């Protein structure tokens, strides 16, 4: 009897067959490890940056340090840690949807090291995206080390993400929302409990080490006059256009860099380092994450002209740094750009109508949310994040107005959200919110035809097409039916998410109908230009 009891306890403890309780315990462990790691990351990059380019350092230092930093991190990324390049959010989504939640320890270490070097040397990128990948990676490594199944490891990835973001932004609720809204695309995900638990645990770690200080300090917000809502709406419009400019420039530059010879890959980050170094020579505030300056813009003690210049420079610097292959995220820069746009709009409004408008700091705050909603395209997360960062409830209504306007403008002018667009550039088709919405029922992989003889002709045909209607193996059958109806076809090639030219099978209407128990009668209609299987 005692032996049996120990065995039961053992099984529970070591997660050989993890129960829900075991996953919750593991979520707490992940929260602790990720929280402590992210705090170390924040402190390390901050302290290194203070040594690399101190506030009163010579101008040449502000030019040389980013160049050397990008050179070193660029080589390390090229030679040892190719998966640690970029923000970390798309990579985390790749891992979640394509690699069953697998992120290697090497990638985690590479991300930590390379981002520390690049952010500490003044590269104009953020630390939150990398933190998310580090957090997801830690969760993945821990899950695998405990011998969890692939589906359980996959379930831990958003747990690590929320823990990372809670510590990086000091926003536990927004971290949960982000994991559900952006990473999973599902507010009713079954891992909700674990995500909340890890976020709270990680946030507690942050508070234990760094105390109870919000990320940004803002003077108490007050609506001076209802006319201000109009100004906030205008801020939403400008923030939306600014966001679109930021995203389009980033995507365009990235395409350009990708077209360069592969042999230059290790050297490309230097372009970002040089660009930001030149800007930093004249305007030091453009370097690095820049949260100190955001704090001052929110306080309203920055000259409006400088704030406006910073808005333009940051919209250029971050895309150049990111697209040239430096390691770092775009969350922080998005907030910086938003604060500068908001500060400028608020400054103009306050100068023109001082009696009916608040201090520019209030507009900078709303601008942060508007840019975040426009660039990252997570409006719910954005509202809650700004609220949590500032702990000022009264800002919520103007924030929602500006966020929604910015979000819709961004959606209108840049239909693909930035992370999906980045993935598409890499030839990866991440599942969109729409495709994930109809996830119930049978999957394409369960009913598709894998007959090699049938596939050969399709492979040959699609190789000559840049775009063609298709389905992915993880698509629900209902989605494929919608797509067939929209395209007016009865047959769709089933292609890999990582390579659309890799045809894994073919799905026909008759097979779908058969899966529903309806016998097919008509001859299949293939897309134009395709031979019948």
């Amino acid at each position, binding site marked *: 009897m005692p032996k049996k009891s120990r065995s039961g306890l*053992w099984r529970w403890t*070591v*997660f*050989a067959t993890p129960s829900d309780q075991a996953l919750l315990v593991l979520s707490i*462990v992940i929260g*602790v*490890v990720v929280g*402590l*790691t992210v*705090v*170390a990351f924040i*402190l*390390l990059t*901050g*302290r290194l940056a*203070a040594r690399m380019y101190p506030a009163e350092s010579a101008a040449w230092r502000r030019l040389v340090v980013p160049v050397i930093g990008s050179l070193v991190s660029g080589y390390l990324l090229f030679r040892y840690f190719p998966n640690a390049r970029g923000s970390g959010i798309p990579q985390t989504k790749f891992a979640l949807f394509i690699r069953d939640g697998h992120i290697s320890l090497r990638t985690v270490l590479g991300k930590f090291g390379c981002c520390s070097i690049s952010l500490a040397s003044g590269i104009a990128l953020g630390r939150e995206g990398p933190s998310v990948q580090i957090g997801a990676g830690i969760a993945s490594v*821990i899950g695998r*080390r*405990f*011998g969890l199944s692939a589906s359980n490891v996959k379930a831990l990835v958003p747990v690590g993400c929320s823990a990372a973001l809670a510590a990086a932004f000091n926003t536990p609720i927004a971290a949960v929302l982000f994991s559900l809204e952006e990473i999973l695309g599902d507010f009713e995900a079954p891992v909700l409990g674990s995500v909340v638990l890890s976020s709270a645990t990680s946030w507690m770690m942050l508070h234990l*080490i*760094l105390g109870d*200080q919000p990320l940004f*300090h803002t*003077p*108490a917000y007050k609506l001076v006059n209802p006319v201000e809502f109009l100004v906030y709406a205008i801020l939403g419009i400008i923030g939306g256009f600014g966001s679109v400019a930021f995203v389009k420039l980033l995507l365009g530059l990235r395409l350009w860099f990708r077209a360069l010879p592969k042999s230059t890959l290790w050297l490309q980050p230097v372009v970002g380092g040089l660009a930001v170094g030149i800007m930093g020579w004249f305007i030091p505030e453009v370097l690095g994450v820049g949260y*100190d300056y955001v*704090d*001052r813009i929110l*306080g*309203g*003690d920055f000259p409006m002209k400088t704030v406006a210049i910073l808005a333009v420079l940051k919209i250029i610097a971050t895309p150049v740094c990111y697209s040239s292959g430096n390691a770092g995220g775009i969350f922080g820069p998005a907030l910086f750009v938003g604060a500068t746009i908001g500060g400028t709009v608020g400054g103009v409004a306050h100068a023109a109508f001082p009696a009916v408008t608040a*201090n520019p700091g209030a507009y900078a705050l709303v601008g942060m949310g508007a840019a975040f909603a426009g660039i990252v395209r997570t409006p719910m997360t954005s509202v809650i994040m700004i609220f949590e960062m500032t702990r000022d409830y009264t800002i919520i209504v103007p924030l929602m107005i500006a966020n929604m306007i910015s979000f819709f403008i961004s959606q209108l002018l840049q239909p693909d959200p930035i992370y999906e667009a980045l993935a598409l550039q890499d030839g990866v088709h991440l599942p969109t919110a729409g495709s994930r919405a109809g996830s119930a029922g049978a999957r394409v992989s369960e009913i598709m035809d894998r007959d090699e003889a049938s596939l050969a002709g399709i492979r040959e045909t699609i190789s000559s097409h840049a775009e063609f209607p298709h389905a992915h193996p993880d698509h629900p059958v209902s989605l494929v039916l919608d797509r067939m109806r929209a395209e007016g076809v009865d047959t769709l090639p089933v292609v890999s998410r990582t390579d659309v030219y890799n045809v894994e099978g073919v799905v026909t209407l008759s097979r779908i109908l058969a899966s529903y128990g309806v016998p097919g009668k008509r001859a299949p209609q293939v897309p134009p230009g395709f031979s019948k299987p």
Partner: protein
Amino acid sequence: MMERVRQVRTIIILVLVIAGLASLDQMLARVESTEMRDSAAHAFQRGQELLARGKASDAVDELSRAHALDRDNPEYALGLVTGLTESGKAGEADALMNEILDQRPNDGQANLTAARLMVKESKAAEAEAYYHRAIYGNWPGDPAAPTRAARLELVNLLLKENARQRLLAELISLEAESGDDENLRKRVAGLFLDAGSPARAAAVYRDLSERRPHDAAVFEGLGDAQLEQGQYRAAQTAFSRAAALDPNSDARARLSLVTEVAELDPTPRGLTSMDKYSRSRKLLSLARNDLADKSQTPDADVRQLLKAADDELSRNRPGNPSNEVSEAVLGLAERIWKTRLAAYGPKMTPEEEPLRLCMEKLQPPS
């Protein structure tokens, strides 16, 4: 079995990783905290220096930086409020001040800074309230010195506001708090004099003169207090002592003033009726000339008063004029003096000082 060993090893590694990360975080947090505190201290010092040099807007940059780097330090927050106040950014100073007071409503230093901000914004009533909260608020260490300093500032405000009753109330408290601090008592005595309470001033000076028999300033102050009280003989003695102790002091000038006033004073006992009449005429003449000099285009009332004075002064009264005659002359002089005060205020030139002292003795100010 191998699986179990692997999992136990994983748990041990995790515990070690957590311990290592916690230690690393603590170390980095300590480094950050130390560096930020140092940077904040430097920025604050630079800000204070700039503030002292009158470069308030440059000082605000440094003080903002100090506050941003170390938000838990109330000294930096209050320094920034002072900087913002000095640079004319009263709105921002107000907002920050409210934030500080929300967090530390009973903090003496915070309330003192708020009081200064209100003084700068010419909100005397609010300033007075904040001064009181500062005086009765919490101070680190021994509160006696900062409390006294705050009360002194309040006294200066009340003096400027000419709020005599409240000023006297504060001075009485200040005198009680001054204990053996002779310098403070000396200052309090001077303030009693400024507040129009020469009797209290004389009492404090008298006490000080016993403790500091070689302090010329104390005797000079005592002389002034006695002069204000109309005790000219005692004042002469005090001024003589002060002049002897410090020949370079103003005591000699004050001595000649008191001599002049004593010779004008029509009230001493034992004065002959002729002397009283003669001094009364002198006072009337001085009051008349003073009003005539001040009013270039006199109105009807003033013209009537001046004519009455001229008539009285031109009148030749043979023999010994009675006490009633002298009182009538003094009454006219008093009416002229009242008109002069009502029309031109209490501000006096040094030449008017003997006249003022005599008139105030005859007709003490309310």
